[in-house]
């Protein structure tokens, strides 16, 4: 079966080097397909942050996650399938915004960015795997 040209697929370990390689690949793919800088950046960011969280907190650096990204006319959609412990990104606490920026403790920013930049972020658990899907609008900031 021939893959549509606008679909990117990869298997990626949740290690720093592998995540950096994926970031390079996905940004090149989206740029080559004419996706705007904002959507290119934020798609790569969502993948980077979800995988970083998986490697850091999910204890799942040694089993590859499956990545799929599709370019559509008005958005870029993506899906990450991993075999880590159950984790819904919506359950992650936001950063402590009540604390002044200069004093704010580290933590929670990556998944907060995922939630803010995704126009659709959905999570399901099936067959002992996490399915995290998202969409990034190709319009300018939705905020």
């Amino acid at each position: 079966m021939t893959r549509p040209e606008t679909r990117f697929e990869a298997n990626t370990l949740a290690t720093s080097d592998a995540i950096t390689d994926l970031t390079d690949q996905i940004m090149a793919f989206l740029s080559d397909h004419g996706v705007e800088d904002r959507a290119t950046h934020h798609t790569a960011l969502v993948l980077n942050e979800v995988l970083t969280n998986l490697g850091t907190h999910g204890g799942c650096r040694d089993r590859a996650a499956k990545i799929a990204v599709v370019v559509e006319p008005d958005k870029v959609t993506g899906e990450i399938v991993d075999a880590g412990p159950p984790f819904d990104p919506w359950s992650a606490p936001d950063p402590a915004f009540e604390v002044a920026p200069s004093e704010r403790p580290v933590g929670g920013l990556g998944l907060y960015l995922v939630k803010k930049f995704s126009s659709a972020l959905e999570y399901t658990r099936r067959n002992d795997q996490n399915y995290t899907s998202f969409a990034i609008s190709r319009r300018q900031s939705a905020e």
Partner: protein
Amino acid sequence: MEIHDERIGDTWIVTAKGRLDGNASAGFADHVGRLIENANPKLLIDFTGVDFVSSAGVWAVLVLSKKIKSAGGSLALCSVRDSVREVLDVSDFTSILSIHPARAEAMAAMGK
């Protein structure tokens, strides 16, 4: 990530190129941190070539900002791409960062 630094007067100018992600942020913070160990350091980071910043990169910039502030110095950023600027905005750190369109404006704001 490539990092180039030069000193003009009492200001260190760091030009970064590439992606400021979890793989690069610690090295970036260490490299730049060594430039600002004196009292009242002045640092300008030129983001012209930075096309990606993750939360780890945001924290690296914040660590440098705190270090400079505690030493009585000043930090400015310039030429930040819109997508990267949006990350800084959403992270709620732009209120404590001095961000300028280009190097000249940043240098002027730092009192050059």
